[in-house]
């Protein structure tokens, strides 16, 4: 007799366990541990037979299940009666997991932006007129890195990273940036690199920028994902924080 097995892809051991519990139509508070363990191991064998990489997480759960199964076979060590059900070890994580699955589907049922509901979009043309207005969006590290990559690609096309003895230290560049911001006020990210010539210098400038952002001496803003990133000094004028 041949079986055709349809393998569902499970996200992890908890996902698989939950599936087995539903499939067997058993109560999560009274899991028939022997049955479920056998089916779980069968499933892992099937995955292996199909050359699917069985992640360590699945094996961990397998050993937990086998351990619980063996505990349940052994008679309780005491007669106190208050012995904890060994199955709690998987019941609680499963409950929590189910709970968050439920919340996830509740979240997904909300009126999601750009799926169910839409806002007005201000055109990039209009946005230019608001230059100098309050910053609109905090820039994340990823946006900053993307922008850096664009600048390097534009100015030094086809360049590859090479490591050389450094000519510029991050500290020097940091001081340079601080001085510039003090003299000229806010600048665009692009302008920060205007004097840089080779890739290592770009990188040192970028590291110096990250350092300054990290220390909270510079604020970085980008009105929209397409527009130029602005750097705004946030150290006080008397230079108290200037000597970095």
């Amino acid at each position, binding site marked *: 007799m041949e079986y055709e097995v349809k393998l569902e892809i499970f996200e992890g051991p908890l996902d698989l366990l939950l599936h087995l519990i539903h499939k067997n139509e058993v109560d999560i*508070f009274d899991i028939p541990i022997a049955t479920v363990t056998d089916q779980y191991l069968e499933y892992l064998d099937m995955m292996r037979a199909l050359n699917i990489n069985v992640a360590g997480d699945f094996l961990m759960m397998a050993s937990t299940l086998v351990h619980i199964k063996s505990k349940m076979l052994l008679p309780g060590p005491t007669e106190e009666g208050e012995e904890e*059900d060994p199955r709690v070890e998987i019941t609680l994580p499963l409950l929590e997991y189910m709970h*968050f699955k439920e919340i*996830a589907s509740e*979240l997904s049922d*909300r009126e999601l932006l750009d799926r169910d*509901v839409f*806002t007005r979009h*201000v055109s990039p043309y209009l946005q230019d007129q608001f230059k100098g207005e309050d910053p*609109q969006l905090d820039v994340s590290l990823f946006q900053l890195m993307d922008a850096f990559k664009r600048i390097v690609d534009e100015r030094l096309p086809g360049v590859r990273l090479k490591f050389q003895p450094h000519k510029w230290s991050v500290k020097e560049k940091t001081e340079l940036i601080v001085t510039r911001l003090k003299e000229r006020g806010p600048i665009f990210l692009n302008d920060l690199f205007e004097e840089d010539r080779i890739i290592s210098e770009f990188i040192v400038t970028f590291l110096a920028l990250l350092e300054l952002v990290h220390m909270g001496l510079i604020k970085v803003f980008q009105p929209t994902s397409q527009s130029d990133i602005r750097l705004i000094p946030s150290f006080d004028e008397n230079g108290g924080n200037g000597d970095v």
Partner: protein
Amino acid sequence: MSKSLKLIIEALLFASDRPLGAREIHGLLSDDSLSSINETLKELQAEYDSMGRSFTLKEIAQGYQFRTQAEYAPYVLRMLKTSPARLSRAALETLAIIAYKQPILRQEIERLRGVDVGGILRTLLEKNLLRIMGRRDLPGRPLIYGTTKKFLEVFDLKSLESLPRLKEIKDLGSDEKGNEITEEAGGSSEQS
């Protein structure tokens, strides 16, 4: 005066591309008190709600924003020539955990989900739905994760407090059934 304040605020909301809060509006209209601005915002919201239009004024991420009603999504999508924004089930579950448990470490998320979440965290950070809140003072200085303002905007939430209450749901689950666990443990002689 109060009528013109209402119309000024309406104009600001109309021209803004992000939710505007009372405080922010107060920054622009310093002659008007924060409380009168708050009141006016509520009035405007009630007016738009009762108008029965295809869009309404919604309270999002501690501000107000005009948004289309969900039933018109297919038409707007046609115009924008895009497919609706989607998040995978795994991403949604991870977000759900972080939204409720933040500030939270990756290790704790992985304990709750039972799988590695490195890839998902990266995607969610790139989508700006998550942010790194700092590092915990533990060996390895692990990163602490939390949700962003954009998370509130995308999921139509006024604030984190307006998430459905976690505790109530949980109590229901473990209180009713909690006793069953111990009962069953005592009576499951067939199994052992």
